[in-house]
């Protein structure tokens, strides 16, 4: 019986492949988490998202 994969699981498995980028982004935010403003870590986030999108498509 084929099990139905929920979208969140597909999402989670794609995100799991980008732990390096996620860690860079997380460090950028956590470095000064009392002063977070919009797009504080935009460059790091875009790299993370790029990696995630690639992983999501490849799957």
């Amino acid at each position, binding site marked *: 019986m084929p099990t139905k994969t929920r979208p*969140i*699981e597909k*999402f*989670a498995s794609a*995100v*799991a492949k980008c*732990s390096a*980028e*996620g*860690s860079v*982004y*997380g*460090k950028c*935010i*956590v470095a000064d*988490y009392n002063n*977070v*403003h*919009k*797009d*504080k*870590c935009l460059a790091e*986030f875009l790299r*993370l*998202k790029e990696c*995630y999108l690639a992983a999501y498509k490849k799957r």
Partner: protein
Amino acid sequence: MNSFRIRAFIPSPSLRIIPLRTSRGYAVQAPGAPTLEIFNRQTKWLQKERAASDVEGSRNVDYLRNEVASRLCERLLDINRHFPEVLDLGANACNIARMLTLPSPESPDAGPRANRISNLTAAESSRSLLYRDEDLEFNNEISIIRDVLTTSETLPYDPNTFDAVLSSLSMHWTNDLPSVLAQVNNILKPDSPFLGVMIGGDSLFELRTSLQLAEQDRRGGVSTHTSPLADVRDIGGLLQKAGFNLLTVDVDDIVVDFPDSFALMRDLQAMGESNAVLGREMGAIQRDVLLAAEGIYRELHGNEDGSIPATFRLIYMIGWKDGPNQAKPLPRGSGMVSIKDVLESQEGGSGDQKK
């Protein structure tokens, strides 16, 4: 008292078109306790029904409720009494009943904990969740009546009905805690205990902070994703206001490790504990925010082995309804012996014990 008349008064057409400006009135607070709405009860009910419709998924996430219910039952055993009628308020999937049929972990040979009670009434607003485990074996080992509440905040029981009221992990979704606690006090027999546990304090602070930081960076603002919770210091006041005596409040932290933040959110959803705050943002959290929150959660709170912790702070509360033979503090000013004299006569000094 509250007698008032309703008159059939139909104003003439000329009176009916008075402009609003001329008919001013006072803004009046309705008498009785102000009803503060924090949670959407309909949403919460729907979430529980949905969660329980996936029976296997729902049973898999019973770990927290079973553990907490077991700890609450231990507290019931501490009271050296037999309880003929017990109410489980907000029973979820009857986790307390299940835990009562097991022996106490401290004395495994003493038989099931349910020996101490005769009848258990399990009351819960979600029918599917309440009847989820109806055909499991533990139902035969305890006399249990399931009762679906039409509203979770009005208790349909007569005063002085129960010898104990238990409540495990459901009171944190109550809008009007003072009212519910006062009703609990009312349905208890005199000199009977209420034992409750609710999620409170800094529960899930890891998830709360990472979602906040992620939204701050991605969207430039925050919205509510976790409930406001009662704090330990609020509970004493709440119980006292509801008329309970001999209060005991204590706190217990349970930290659960998850592989990633999505597993945590999925489990919360399967428990039926998703966000149900009024005025929350409708629809799912944006994927950008989830993606960002996962990275932040790992960096800010993650364990060394790559898992992430989620803290559940449980607040246990015990209160006793007033009874005629209950121990009471003496009235003020009735003390006739000075503590100073007692200490001086005992040790011949100022109370410092010399060795």
